[in-house]
Every structure is written in C-alpha cells, then in structure tokens.
C-alpha cells in the first residue's frame, strides 16, 4: 500500500518517467484501481499449491515452442521421396508432414531441441494437471465457491488430452498413424452415423489427404484457443476467490495467510517459470522423445509392436485392450462393442471425478464457503473415492502397456489382460475400503496425540520398576490443528411415520442422500474428536498409563 500513497505525496519537480507512463495507462485502463486490490494480494506458500503453476508454465512453454515449430512444419499429406540428411530414411516415400518433421530434427539447428521441449512439456503439462487435480480433490479445495473453477480445470485436462493427441498425430509417423487408424475404427463403430462421419472427417477413405491438415488446425488453433480462454478464466477465479490454505495456527475461513504478490510471490512464481523451463530444457537435452526417424513414416500396411499413445491416452488404450470381443449383428447392422463400450466408459470415468463436487455438496447440504482445506483423513469417504478412482485409472494405464509389462517382467500378456479386467472392478472397491480404514486409523492417532501427547521416545523407569515411555503434551498450535475440523451429524430422514401414524413418503433421492450422508458422517467414517472436557480430565489427572 505504501507504493500508492507515496505517489500522491507532495513532490518537487515532474513525476519520474515510469510514473508518468503509469498515469497515462491509468487514465485509459484504470490500472491503479486494479493494482490496489491485487498488487499486494496474499498467496499462501505450499509446494502442492505450485503443481498448478507447473501446468501453467508448461502450457506457456508449449505455446512458445509450438509457434516456433509451425515456422518449419508443413501440415501436408502430399507424398515426397526423402533426400535429406538422415541416411536410414533416404529414398523412402513419406508425407510432407513427416519429411518436415525430419528436417526440423536434422536440418534446423536447435529444431530437435525445440521439438523435444515441446513434447516433454506436453507430457509434463498433462501430468502436472492430473496431480494438481488430485491435490485439489483430496484436500476438498473444490468446495464452494470453487466448483466452477474445478470444472474449468477438468475441461482443461480433457482438452489437454485431445490437444496432445492431435499434436502427437501431426508428424504422420508409423506410431501416430496407427493411433489415427484407431480413431478411424472408433468413428466407424458409432451406430448410424459412423461410416458417414468417417468419410467426412477424413475427407474420404482412410487415410486420405485431409486428416493431418485438419488435425493441424485443431491442434494449433481451435483447442489451444479454447484452452487459453479457460486458462484465463481459471486464473481470474483463483485471484477472485483468493487461494485456499491448509489449517493451522492463525488460519481461519475468513482470512488468507501468506506472502504478498509484490514482491515475494511475484519473484517466486516468476522465478518458478524459469525453473520449470530450465528443467524441461535440460530434460530435452538429455532424453530423446518420439524419435520419428527411428519410427518411420506411416503406411497403413505397416505397424510396430509396442503401439501405444502418449501416457495421458494410455487409460483409454487400456480400456480398449482389455475389452472382450463382443459384437452384435442384427437386421443387417453391426454394433462393435469391442470399441463402443471402452469409448463410452472412458468419458464416464472422467465425468465421475468431474461431477464429484456436486454430488458431495448435495449429500452434505452444505451451503457455506470453504477456504480451509481438509486433511484427507478427516473425510474418509471422499479420500476413499479418490483412491478408488486413481486405482481404476492406473489399472487401465497398466492395461494400456500390457505388452511391455509382459516382455519386461516375463509375464504372459493374456494373464496381464485378465488381471486388469478383474482389477478394474475389484481394485477400486478394495482401495476404497482400505483407504477408509487407514483414514480412521489416522483419525484415532490424532485423537490419541491430542489426549495423551506425542510419544517422545524417552523411556522412564518408575520407582516400582515399571518402564514407561514419556508422552510430551502438544503445544496449542498442534492441538488446534488436530481438532479444528468439523464433524457434522449425518442427515436424518426422521421417523418413518408421521404423528398421525401415516407412512411418510420419502423420495428415492432422499433415501439415497441419507445413506450417502451416513457414509460420510456415520460411525464408520468418523472418530469423534476429543472434547475439551476429555482433554482436561486426562491432563488434570496428570498421569496416564
């Protein structure tokens, strides 16, 4: 605040140049009012709050390097014979898309580096979004007022997957071309419109000459444009809502504790951009990614084993790989369930996590704003659901790489497939149950720590010869941290008959809600936290077992 006040204090001589420029801008853009509320905005510090920043910065890196790549890339499927500098490809027929990718890699100085930064940053972008999403999920940061921002983030993740996929397809190499062929199969499998859609999207028979230019437009213009808009909205909402914070001394639902944007956060966040860029550049110097020259150009009659998409599509790949071969023929029509079912389950699994905040808020009936994060153990049902979802996701990711696990761990590909088929259904259930038990155990431990103090590791011998471990009482900060969470009562449906003895009509939704509410707040999910009375009773007795 001192910056602005000093600007208005009396001063001799004309204002310095910077100030005059700022005045000019303020007269047109109103920057002073904007800066007043934002320049010293407080951001809490925690490493997990920076996962979203990793995603943001990798997105910027992708855009910067992507613009550079468009200067050299020819999104054309016209066929040429290669005569460039990479010997094992000389004399081979390929599309211009593939040829220009080889040229970027072998004839443009630094082109290979930029290509590798672009691709590595894309993998990190999706990975960071996923981990960021999980951080938000497990700490309950999606609760009111942030549900809309959760959806924006989710959309960014989904769009990121498709932007990544279209980009992966652009070089028209044998690996990505196989992926495009898969897309053709998926489109063909659609009931009623499949074959028409396929001809429209590919501009005729597969592969045609249109799909790469069309993917190019989608990859560099359509999807990134939408993502940029969503990203700006996402960030504006982060600013507007102010960041959540972990519980702790001095942190309440009505404040935000941390460092001001100017200077500390700006230096840290700005510096972090360079750190992220630096790390990704170093990775691109050390590790090769998508070496299209080793993969070769696409030809529809060629293929390689280990045909996988990039990791973020591995989940969908797994679903398709482990699906049994069901197909239905009726009245001259065919439904290819071997493709249709995985392609329907894929969005369903994603939507399950996307709508979760709305389900939880409906079950809880909680209309308040939440700015203090939950400790995952205190909300075992949510944590259990999150773990179950992750297990389903990663089981399918394993399924997507079943051939490589088979060769590298000397297993049978058929056994892995069967394992994945079963684990996709059983794993999440076991994960849910186990996570809930672990959460309850941690809640009990917290309670124990509050009431009996921390185990100090000091062994004392009592006069009568008994050995005990000395427990040190917690300080007030710790006590507050372990007891600050709320433990509401589960929703009650009330008596089944009203005062006149007539059965009350309860909608199915109400019953479901009560049931779910019980799973959130019932005895199975909550260890009653210690009360002040309990604490006093035990500590005043100044002796414990």
């Amino acid at each position, binding site marked *: 605040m001192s910056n602005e006040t000093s600007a208005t204090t009396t001063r001799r001589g004309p204002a310095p140049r910077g100030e005059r420029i700022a005045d000019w801008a303020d007269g047109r853009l109103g920057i002073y009012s904007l800066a007043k509320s934002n320049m010293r905005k407080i951001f809490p510090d925690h490493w997990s709050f920076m996962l979203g920043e990793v995603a943001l910065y990798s997105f910027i890196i992708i855009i910067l390097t992507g613009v550079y790549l468009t200067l050299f890339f020819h999104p054309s499927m016209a066929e040429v014979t290669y005569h460039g500098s990479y010997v*094992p490809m000389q*004399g081979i027929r390929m599309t211009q898309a593939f040829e220009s990718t080889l040229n970027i*890699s072998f004839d443009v100085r630094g082109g290979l580096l930029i290509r590798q930064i672009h691709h590595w940053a894309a993998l990190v972008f999706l990975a960071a979004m996923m981990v960021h999403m999980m951080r938000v999920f497990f700490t309950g940061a999606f609760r009111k007022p942030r549900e809309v921002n959760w959806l924006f983030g989710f959309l960014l993740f989904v769009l990121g997957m498709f932007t990544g996929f279209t980009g992966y397809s652009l070089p028209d190499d044998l690996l990505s071309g196989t992926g495009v062929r898969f897309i053709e199969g998926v489109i063909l499998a659609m009931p009623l419109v499949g074959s028409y859609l396929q001809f429209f999207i590919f501009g005729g028979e597969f592969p045609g000459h249109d799909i790469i230019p069309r993917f190019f437009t989608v990859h560099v213009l359509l999807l990134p444009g939408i993502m940029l808009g969503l990203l700006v909205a996402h960030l504006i909402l982060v600013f507007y809502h102010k960041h959540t914070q972990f519980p702790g001394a001095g942190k309440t639902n009505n404040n935000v504790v941390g460092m001001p944007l100017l200077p500390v956060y700006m230096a840290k966040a700005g510096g972090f951009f360079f750190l992220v860029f630096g790390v990704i550049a170093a990775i691109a110097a050390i*590790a090769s990614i998508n070496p299209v020259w080793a993969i070769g150009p696409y030809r529809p009659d060629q293929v390689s*084993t280990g045909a996988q998409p990039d990791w973020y599509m591995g989940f969908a790949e797994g679903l398709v790989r482990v699906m049994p071969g069901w197909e239905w023929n009726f009245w001259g029509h065919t439904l290819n369930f071997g493709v249709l079912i995985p392609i329907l389950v894929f969005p369903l699994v994603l939507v399950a996590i996307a709508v979760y905040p709305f389900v939880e808020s409906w079950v809880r009936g909680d209309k308040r704003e939440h700015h203090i994060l939950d400790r995952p153990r205190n909300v075992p049902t949510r944590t259990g659901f999150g773990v179950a979802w992750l297990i389903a996701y990663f089981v399918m990711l394993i399924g997507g790489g079943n051939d490589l696990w088979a060769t590298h761990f000397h297993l049978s590909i058929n056994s892995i497939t069967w394992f994945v088929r079963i684990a996709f259904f059983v794993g999440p259930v076991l994960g849910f149950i186990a996570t809930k038990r672990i959460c309850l155990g941690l809640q009990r431990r917290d309670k124990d720590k509050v009431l009996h103090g921390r185990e100090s590791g000091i062994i004392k011998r009592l006069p009568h010869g008994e050995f005990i471990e000395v427990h040190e009482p917690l300080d007030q900060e710790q006590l507050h941290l372990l007891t600050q969470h709320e433990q509401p009562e589960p929703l009650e449906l009330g008596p089944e008959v009203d005062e006149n003895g007539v059965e009350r009509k309860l909608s199915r939704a109400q019953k479901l809600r009560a049931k779910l509410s019980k799973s959130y707040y019932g005895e199975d999910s909550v260890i009653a936290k210690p009360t002040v009375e309990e604490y006093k009773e035990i500590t005043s007795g100044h002796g414990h077992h």
Partner: protein
Amino acid sequence: MKKLSARRRHPLAALVVLLLALAVTGGLYAAFAPADKAQADDTAQSLAIKEGKKLFAVGCASCHGTGGQGTSDGPSLVGVGAAAVDFQVGTGRMPAQQPGAQVPRKRNIYTNAQIDQLAAYVASLGAGPTVPEKSQYSSDGANIGKGGELFRTNCAQCHNFTGKGGALTNGKFAPTLEGVDPKHIYEAMETGPQNMPSFGDGSLSKQNKKDIIAYLGAVNGDESESPGGLDLGGLGPVSEGLFGYIFGLGALIAVAIWVAARTTKAKKS
C-alpha cells in the same frame, strides 16, 4: 520343469552329466588348441559329420531323437538345414535348459568348430538352408532405407521399430535384436526358429535380407545414434511417460518444495 526334475533322478543322469562335462572340456580344449590344417574337403566333410554325430548324441539326441527324427520333447531336425543349427546352437538357445513358453537366448557353450560339425551332421539328415556366407549379410551393397521399409513391413510388428523386441501370446515374445550377430539374423529369417515365421527367398529376396540387416546395423548397433539423447529403451510412449512422470514432474516437485519451503530461521541466542 516337471520333466526335467523327473529326469534328474534318472539312473543315467550322472552319465549324461559326465558326458556333457567331457564335451565341454573337449570343447574348451578345441577352442584353445591351434586349429589343424585344413584337410581335403570331402574327408573334412565326412569327418565333420562323424564328429557332429557324436556331439549330437550327447547334447541333442535326448529331445530330438538319436537320428534327429524328433520325439515328444523336440521336433524333427530332418531338413531344417545347417542354418537352423548354426542359429539355435550359436545363440545358445539349444540345447534348451528347460521347457517353457519359449526357449531364450543364453550363453553358447560350443565352439564354432563344434557348431559346424553339428550343423554338418544335421544337414546330412536332409537338405535345408545352409549357413550364409559373409557376403550375404555384410552391409556392402545394401540399401539401408529400403531395409528400413522392409523391416517395418515384415519384422517391426513383432520386434519393434528398431528391433527392441515385443510380446506375443501367452508368455511368448519376440526377442530384442540388440547385439545379435548379423549371421544369426539372416539364419533366423531363413529358418524361422520357434514361433517366428520363416522368410525364405520367396518372401524376402536375398537382397531384401541384406537390406534389413544393414538397416538393423544402422539403428540398433553399438554405435547407433540417438541424436535426441537417452533412447529410453526405444520402447515408445510408455517409457517416455514413465520418464516424464518420474524425472520431469519429479524434478519439478523437488524444485517446488525448495521454492515454497520456509527459509531457515536464525538460531535464537
């Protein structure tokens, strides 16, 4: 497994082991001993067949039958040719250690001379592909680019883009081609060992095979370039994804922890 352990208790087991040990000793001696002067061709050939028969009786007959006619444990070797023997024994696959989904490559215990003798014996059982000449698999006069295209059409579906290997059904696999002698690659194409289909001159011409071997030498040799850096096994997106998560995101989280950590406080004095 079962069959082998059952056989371990066989009264003749000790004898087999002893003979095997003798063969190894003899083999080692032959390896270190200076080679005899080449004798007249026909005598050398018949001598080789005779020696080969002896070696066969010790190392191969238990599964393939005393005359190479095959038993329930091993296929007939009539007509497989010298190339098959040179491949199977030269890569250490034969004699097999144990039955399983697939017999893996292992250290070869025979000398080149012994392999030639075995090959001569098996070739005498019935005509088959012969061991290729060096000129057939050397990269002189080969077209690497064409070889790559042929490799992607005929080989990559099982052995991966650059021959890193891949999975087949029920625990079988297409092995990596890294460090495999070009001669053995040629022989494998010609004879189709185990579940690999053969690619006789009708499916892949001699020049085709030469091109393929030259391509493999260029992309999967000791000196093969990986301009972008670590090739991560050459396995494609799975290893790239793992690397991106562990080293990419992992490094960035480590950096984030440093950025967000509280600075050390001065000690209270």
